Structures are given as structure tokens and as C-alpha cells.
């Protein structure tokens, strides 16, 4: 094809493209006939617009949180002297001369109002600071591994504050802190769900497969855990955590605490399915073929409703995130200097603080956004996992 | 058509359906469930309506009481004339929720449904639900006298111990008992017309016979007309004075029960007859009608039965126009070009 003259090359290319497209759609059709469960689910899920958008937003949230070193302009503990409780920096597009410009900010200065004696923040409009992508900073290591010396965006002068969401009591950038806090808040869901998943499938599996006294005991415990209010148990358990534990230990402890009740719902589902599947032929066939009990549960019964479990888990994550946020908000979860969305919101607990510095409530928008998106994705998956369901 | 035009042949009509079209506007297209039906029900007589499921029998019945869920259902054409104490009401003109249609429902026209198991609300007693009809239509009644009437009605439809059963809940009744209670409810305000929409389909055969006997007995007592809808030829042949045969939203044949049985004209009717065992016929000659009812979404443009007809005439039956109706013998109508 390289020797062909230009027009023939194009014709060939377009023909090739058309053929490729036709084959692809044929393949797609064929694939649908022979599709595995996973492919069917993905196909149905893609049709669910809202869920797809939600999945994209979640991906963005997770990416910027993991890469917070790079995406956040400042470190979460970086203080701007004399910029306590500063409002969000205004971003301008139009210069004083009325010309459209790349987004820029003015240097903010703090002045004391001579009548109220309160600090006020004004813009010093003499000099423009352009917001640049990939600005150079001191070298650091992304994810503690990759050496890098750029930030995603920022000002070339590192000492001019660029506070997208304002600053807190100690002059720290709320936006940067939100991104770093996401590392804990967004991932606590996964940790908790992992534990939930393991506990739920094992206990539910045992309960459903063996029945009898084991089943009876597990069912009683589940009943208690379901009928008992969450928060008091969480509070009590967190209270019992030793004070001298570090952030990592606390983090894992909180994960476990959140999972204490979470596994019950899953265990019930697993148990119900196991009981109905247990009698079905393939389990009997496997048993007849001499497979061990555990082998039957894990290689034959669990995969049979794995998509069901995934849906359940997706819908369980937001509950975990909310739990961590609530505990940290109450001062019983993650403790400073570690940051989670809950600890950030602790600053907003006082109504007078809130009334004066409403931007401290911005972390809550991230909580709500994440929860909503997980719900949409979960709904989408639920519809997709059950392509034959009418509703 | 008014009362002074009565001839000895045609008895007095109480309900007349003229060119009724009930369509369902779905996202996927319009379903013409009933597509131009003419029927007449005479006082004290039984009209049987037969056809395979999906042919529009139930939709016709529901249209009479304006019970078609809307949207998506809609009566797009035709008249349903109810002759009531000297006045004529066109039911298609009524709003589905206005007072007039509510007076007609239950009082002038009673209806029995196919599913006795789900026809009663689960949370109220049978007596409450039957008495409700009486209290709705006869304002003067007290709850006490309504209750006594209900007990009497339950006795009339053959429910043992009606004094106790009146306070029972639906789940305490068997299917046959519920259908009896259903009939009691439908006749509680002495309607002129009882629409029985597949009244025995979900019951077993012995109960079926009892229910049909009950309907015949009640008709003799009260003189009400019955519109009996069924896909079961035996059921219809037992009770009907006149029979209408429906196929895919069209009335393909209409005549007296005797005429339809002895001299079926339409190939579909003939096919139906061949597909059931008859007492007087050879047992080995059961021939099913080939094919299945096409979806109402892609109905044939000419004769609706063309695709399954063994006497299909090319160039005539597939003409994209409605088949005209021919009166082959007095009061025996058929929509088929064979009789042109």
C-alpha cells in the first residue's frame, strides 16, 4: 500500500475502513450471541447514559485524588501566612483594558477595615498572575515514586495564593485539601466493601450451604446487626480505639468498624441465592463428581451470581463513605493532621464560622456528588445485570 | 334505531356498538386492538363473543365500561349506545371519570372478570366490597340493609353460610367461590346487562359448569342480557343466543348460535370448528388452524385472516382495504369475499 499513489491509497483506506466497520458490527452481533455474562452486562450498562456519565465523573474524582500531589496546587498542610479564612480567589478572564485573556488572578492583600476592625481581602490589581497548566515547582515524587517537578496548574509565583475554594482557619488551601482528603474518603469505601464482601460471602455462604444450627446462629446475629442503629455502634467502637494509634491503624480500624454491619445485607443475599442454587443440578453434579464443599461454593455457586454481588457492592460503597464522613465529622474517625472530607467539614460545625466562611462547606458538595454518582452507577449496573428484568 | 321501529324478528336492543375502534398508542407504534366492530345486544338475550386470545374481545368489553387505561389506550372511533329507560347514551362520548359513566358501571352494566383470584382487594371483607356497590348506587340504603342484601345475594349465587362468609376475606375463598362472589357483586344492582369476560377460564371444569349454570339461572330470574366473552366454543355454545366471531380486532362473522354452528361461513369460524372435538363429529378429524395470530402491530392490510386462510384468493383478499360485510342469510353476516 505504501507504493500506491495518493488517491488510490485514500480509496483503499476508506474501503478498508468500511469493511472494518461492517466486520466490526458483525462481530459485535455475533459477540452478543455468544457473549459472556460480563460482556452482556457491559453492553447494557453502556446504554444507561446517566450511569455512564456518573462512572466518568467518579473516574475523574478518583484520578485527581490519587494524583493529588500533581493535581492539587499546594500541599494539604501548606499555610499561607496572613491568609486565614480567606474567601475563594476570583478568577478573571477580562483585563482592565477590556481584553479577553487566559484566566488570571490578582494578588490578594489583607487589610484591616478601620470601622469594623475586621480583616478584609482585596485585590491588588496592579499585577496580573496568569494561571498556567503544568507549572514548574520544587521537585517532588508523584505517588512517592515518580520524580516530577510540575503541578497540573498554578501560578508561576508560588507565593501568590491561588485559593479556588478559599482557605481555612490556618490559611490552608481548601481545594488542595479536598483532593488529598479524597484519598481517604474515596478509598475507605473500597476497604470497607472488601471486608464486607469477604465476610458477607463467607458467612452467607456457610449459612446457606450448611443450614442447621450454624445458619440459625448467623441469622440471629444478622438480625440483631440489622435492627440495631448504625451510628451508636460506630461511635462506641471508635471510642474504644486506643488514642495512640497512628493514622494508618485508625484508618484500617475505621474500615473494619464500617464493615461490622455492612456484611449482613450481602450475607443474606448470598445465603438466599445459595439455598436456591444448592438444589440446582450443577451443584449436585459437582458434588456427585466428588468436589469438596468449599470448592462447590467458590467455583460453582459464587460465580453464578457474581454480577449480583457487584451491584450490591456498588450500592454499599456510598454508605461506607457517608459513615466515614459522619464519624470524622463527629471527631471519632480520621484525626488531624490526616485529612478526610469529614475532618474538613469539622471546621464548618460552628454556625458562626459557617455564616462567615461558607466556603468551608464546599467539601460537602464532593461528598454528595460522590454518593449520587455511586447511586447512579449502581442503578445502571442493577438494570444491566438483569437484562431480562422489565423495570 | 328507536323502540317503535321494533320488528317481531329483532328484539329490543339495549346496547349497540357501531364501528368501534380502540387503539393503543405505544412507543413502539399503534396497536389497533379493536378495529371497527359492530355488535348488538338485545334485552334478556345472551351474545357470545369468541375468538383466540389477543383478538380484541376483552378490549371491546373494557371499552363498553370505559375501563381502557388511557394513556396508552384510546377509543378513536365509533359509538357505544346504551338504551336506558327511554334515553340513549353514547358511552364513547363520556369522560372516563365523570358521574354518568360511574352510574352506568355497576348499576346498568355489571362486569365479571377473568381472574377471580385477584379481582377482590385483599384487605377488605367480601361483604364490604359487594356492599360498596349497593351503597354507591343506592344512596338511600343504610349499611345494615346493604349487608342484608349482600347476604341474600351470596345465598343467591350459592355460597353456603352466607351470614358468616359475608365477613370473610378474599384469601379465605376458593377460586370458584370468589367467582361466585364476583357474580354476586356484578348483579347486586340488578343490571340490564352483565358482561362476563372469560368468567370460567381460570376455573376447573366442574366449577366451570356450576358457574355457567348459575349464570343461566340468574338470567332466567332477572331477565338481564349477558355478553359472554370466551375463547372456549363449548362455553359459548351452551349459553349464547347469538354469536360474534372476532379475529384480530375485526368481527368476521355474526349470527344466531344455531346458524353459526350449523352453517359456519367464514374460513376462520370453520377452522375453529374443525379444531375442536364435536359430539356429532368424527374424533380423528381435528385440524388446527395453521400459523398463529399475527401481532396486531403488523396486521395484514387486506383481510386480517389472509395469512392463515386456506381459501385465500390472490388479488382479492390481499387488497389493502377493509373487507365488506355480506348478509348471506337473514341475520347472518360474514366479512369474507367468498360470499361476495
Amino acid at each position: 500500500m505504501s507504493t500506491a499513489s495518493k488517491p488510490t491509497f485514500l480509496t483503499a483506506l476508506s474501503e478498508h475502513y468500511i469493511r472494518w466497520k461492517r466486520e466490526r458490527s458483525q462481530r459485535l452481533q455475533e459477540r452478543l450471541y455468544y457473549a459472556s455474562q460480563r460482556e452482556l452486562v457491559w453492553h447494557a450498562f453502556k446504554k444507561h447514559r446517566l450511569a455512564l456519565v456518573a462512572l466518568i465523573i467518579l473516574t475523574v474524582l478518583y484520578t485527581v485524588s490519587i494524583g493529588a500531589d500533581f493535581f492539587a496546587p499546594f500541599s494539604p498542610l501548606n499555610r499561607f501566612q496572613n491568609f486565614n479564612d480567606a474567601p475563594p480567589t476570583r478568577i478573571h478572564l477580562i483585563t482592565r483594558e477590556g481584553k479577553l485573556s487566559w484566566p488570571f488572578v490578582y494578588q490578594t492583600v489583607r487589610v484591616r477595615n478601620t470601622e469594623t476592625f475586621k480583616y478584609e481581602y482585596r485585590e491588588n490589581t496592579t499585577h496580573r498572575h496568569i494561571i498556567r497548566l503544568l507549572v514548574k515547582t520544587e521537585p517532588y515524587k508523584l505517588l512517592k515514586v515518580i520524580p516530577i517537578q510540575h503541578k497540573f496548574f498554578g501560578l508561576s509565583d508560588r507565593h501568590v495564593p491561588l485559593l479556588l475554594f478559599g482557605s481555612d482557619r490556618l490559611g490552608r488551601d481548601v481545594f488542595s485539601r479536598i483532593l488529598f482528603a479524597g484519598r481517604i474518603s474515596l478509598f475507605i469505601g473500597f476497604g470497607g466493601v472488601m471486608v464486607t464482601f469477604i465476610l458477607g460471602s463467607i458467612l452467607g455462604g456457610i449459612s446457606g450451604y450448611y443450614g442447621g444450627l450454624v445458619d440459625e446462629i448467623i441469622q440471629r446475629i444478622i438480625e440483631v446487626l440489622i435492627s440495631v442503629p448504625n451510628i451508636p455502634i460506630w461511635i462506641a467502637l471508635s471510642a474504644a480505639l486506643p488514642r495512640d494509634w497512628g493514622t494508618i491503624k485508625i484508618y484500617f480500624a475505621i474500615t473494619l468498624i464500617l464493615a461490622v454491619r455492612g456484611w449482613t445485607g450481602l450475607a443474606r443475599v448470598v445465603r438466599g441465592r445459595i439455598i436456591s442454587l444448592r438444589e440446582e443440578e450443577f451443584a449436585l453434579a459437582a458434588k456427585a463428581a466428588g468436589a469438596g464443599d468449599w470448592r462447590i461454593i467458590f467455583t460453582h455457586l459464587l460465580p453464578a451470581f457474581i454480577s449480583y454481588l457487584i451491584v450490591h457492592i456498588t450500592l454499599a460503597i456510598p454508605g461506607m463513605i457517608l459513615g466515614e464522613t459522619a464519624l470524622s465529622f463527629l471527631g471519632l474517625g480520621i484525626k488531624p493532621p490526616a485529612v478526610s472530607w469529614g475532618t474538613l467539614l469539622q471546621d464548618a460545625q460552628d454556625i458562626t464560622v459557617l455564616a462567615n466562611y461558607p466556603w468551608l462547606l464546599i467539601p460537602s458538595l464532593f461528598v454528595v456528588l460522590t454518593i449520587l454518582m455511586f447511586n447512579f452507577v449502581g442503578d445502571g449496573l442493577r438494570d444491566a445485570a438483569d437484562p431480562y428484568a422489565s423495570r | 334505531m328507536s323502540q317503535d321501529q321494533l320488528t317481531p324478528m329483532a328484539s329490543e336492543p339495549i346496547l349497540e356498538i357501531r364501528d368501534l375502534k380502540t387503539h393503543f398508542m405505544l412507543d413502539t407504534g399503534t396497536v389497533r386492538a379493536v378495529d371497527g366492530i359492530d355488535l348488538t345486544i338485545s334485552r334478556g338475550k345472551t351474545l357470545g363473543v369468541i375468538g383466540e386470545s389477543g383478538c380484541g374481545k376483552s378490549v371491546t368489553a373494557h371499552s363498553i365500561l370505559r375501563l381502557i387505561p388511557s394513556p396508552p389506550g384510546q377509543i378513536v372511533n365509533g359509538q357505544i349506545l346504551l338504551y336506558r329507560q327511554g334515553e340513549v347514551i353514547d358511552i364513547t362520548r363520556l369522560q372516563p371519570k365523570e358521574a354518568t359513566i360511574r352510574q352506568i358501571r355497576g348499576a346498568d352494566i355489571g362486569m365479571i372478570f377473568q381472574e377471580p383470584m385477584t379481582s377482590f382487594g385483599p384487605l377488605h371483607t367480601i361483604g364490604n366490597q359487594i356492599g360498596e356497590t349497593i351503597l354507591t348506587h343506592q344512596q338511600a340504603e343504610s349499611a345494615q340493609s346493604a349487608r342484608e342484601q349482600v347476604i341474600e345475594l351470596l345465598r343467591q349465587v350459592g355460597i353456603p353460610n352466607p351470614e358468616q362468609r359475608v365477613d370473610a376475606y378474599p384469601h379465605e375463598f376458593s377460586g370458584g367461590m370468589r367467582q361466585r362472589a364476583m357474580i354476586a357483586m356484578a348483579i347486586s344492582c340488578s343490571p340490564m346487562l352483565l358482561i362476563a369476560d372469560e368468567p370460567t377460564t381460570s376455573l376447573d371444569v366442574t366449577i366451570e359448569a356450576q358457574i355457567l349454570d348459575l349464570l343461566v339461572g340468574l338470567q332466567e330470574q332477572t331477565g338481564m342480557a349477558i355478553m359472554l366473552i370466551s375463547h372456549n366454543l363449548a362455553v359459548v355454545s351452551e349459553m349464547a343466543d347469538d354469536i360474534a366471531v372476532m379475529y384480530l380486532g375485526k368481527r368476521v362473522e355474526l349470527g344466531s348460535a344455531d346458524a353459526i354452528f350449523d352453517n359456519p361461513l367464514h374460513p376462520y369460524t370453520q377452522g375453529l370448528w374443525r379444531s375442536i372435538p364435536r359430539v356429532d363429529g368424527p374424533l380423528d378429524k381435528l385440524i388446527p388452524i395453521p400459523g398463529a395470530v399475527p401481532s396486531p402491530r403488523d396486521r395484514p392490510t387486506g383481510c386480517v385472516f389472509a395469512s392463515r386462510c386456506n381459501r385465500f384468493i390472490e388479488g382479492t383478499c390481499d387488497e389493502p382495504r377493509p373487507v365488506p360485510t355480506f348478509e348471506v342469510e337473514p341475520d347472518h353476516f360474514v366479512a369474507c369475499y367468498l360470499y361476495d
Partner: protein
Amino acid sequence: MTALIIRRIILIIPLLFIISIISFIIILLPPGSYVETYVENLERTGFLMDESQIKAIYKQYGLDRPAVVQYILWMSNFLLKGEMGRSFIYQKPVTEVIMERLPMSMAVTLISLAVTWLLAVPIGIYSALRQYSIGDYVATIIGFVGLALPNFLLALALTYLVFAKTGHAVTGLFSIEYKDAPWTVDKLFDLLGNIWLPILVIASAGTASLIRILRATLLDEKNKQYVTTARAKGLPEHKLILKYPVRVAINPLISTIGWTLPLIVSGEIIVSQTLGLETLGPVLLSAAMGEDMFLVGSIVMILSSLTVIGTLISDILLAWIDPRIRFDKVSI
């Protein structure tokens, strides 16, 4: 019916037993013995512990004996004398601390439950009957947001809004002048003026999901045969909808009390802390902060037991209004 109630009550006993064990484990959880923490805390605050007092507590709760014995002593003290230990934060018996706040907690919880229903039932019915109307969409959106918005955030946002609009800070159930005043009509009105916001916030948690459930069930029910039957009788539309499908759709809702009640109790604690209500929530929290474990464990036990009992009552209620369950023909 009586048999059913008795069976349910017998079934609840093992639940209460497990709850008491869990609560007691919570008391034992923190490293170090209760008395050590007790003395440590007292010394930190400048008090000196009386030797005889320490000994009395040791003896009453068998703190030097095995955990099982401690549990038995704790439970028998509770069941026989209504004593659950001593709170060092409040310097009072735990029972006394709890009883001061419990009535208000229960009042707030029950009113919130009632409000949840008063909001959810009409909105759910409206949404289902006017499916795809603007009102239905609004209800759906509010429902989704309500699901995603944790109630302490809603509390913060609403307090902020109220404060920004009126300058009135909703903190606590009573204004300062009535806080310690005896009950009068004025105090009651003051309470009503303050209580609506926390109630609304706490109720929001369950309302959203209740609306969704009611809407879905009612959409199912309103197309069932028995509704058509009732319509064919000539009943007016609104009457038949209320009498038949709505009644049927509300019944399963009663069984949701089993999980709305824990939700509300949880919400009550966190909202009370945020808004400074005089209920058990803030007590539990400060006890947890101070590792006042007898108080923590006892509050957990009381709240959990009451929730379970509340669920039991809702079960019995359901059996009472639903003939299918009352006669034991259908099990849900």
C-alpha cells in the same frame, strides 16, 4: 393473633440478649480497666478518688473477676435495680444520666418517624398517580438528593440558610431563656419553634427511600385487577384509589419501620450533635470521647433495645391491619 404476638415476643428475647452482650463487649473493649481510666480521668480533672468508692464499684461490678461474671453482675444490676454503672464524666449513676435525656430522645425519634410518614405517603401517592408529571420528577430528584445528602450536612446547610435569612441560629431545642425553666405554654411554643428544623432533617433520611418504595409498589398495585373491578363497580376514582391500591401499598411500608427506625435513631444522634439538641446523642458522643464506657455501652444497649422493640411493635401493627397476615395465610 394472640399467638402471633406471643411468638414475636419470644423471638425478640434472643435478640435483646445478643444486644446486651454486644453492649457489654463495648464496655470491656478499651485497653485498661474501667477503674484505671476512671481514676486517671478524675485525677486529671483534679478530683481524688475515694478509696472506699473505688472498692464499692469493684465489688458491685466484680471488676477483678472474669468477664462472664462481670456481664452477669452488670445485667442483674440492671434488671433487678435498674443500675448500669457510674459515669465519671457526669459524676452520676448511668441510669440517671440516661433518664434525663431519654424522654426527649424518644420524643424526637417518634415525631421524626411520624413526619417521615406524613411527608412520604402523600408525596409517594402523588408521584405514582401522576407518573411522569413535573411533580413526580421533582419528587424523584428530591428523593435522590435526599438519599445522597447525609443528614448532618443537611442540618448544616439548613441552619446556615435559616441563619442567613433570619439571623436566628437554631441551636438546641429551647432558647436560652427557657432552657432550665419549668414547663409552661410559652416553653412549649418555644420548643415548637425550634424543633421543626431538626425533625425535618432527621425525617429526610427515611423519607426519600420511603417515597421510592411507596411509588414503586403503588405503580404496581394500581394496575391490578382488583382496581379495575372496583372501577367497574362505579366507585369514584379518588375513593377507590385510596381504599384499594393505596391501602395495599402502605402495608409493606409498615414493615420498613424495621429499618427506618434504626436510621432515624442514628440520624437523631448525629443531628442532635450538630444542632446541639438536648437528647442522648451528644451525651453518647461526649461519653465516647471521654471513654466513659459504662455510659457508652448502656446508651448503646438502651437505644438498640428500644429500636428492636419499636420494630416489634410495627410488626404487630402490620399483622393487626393486614388480614392476610392476621389469619396467618400468607407469610411476608
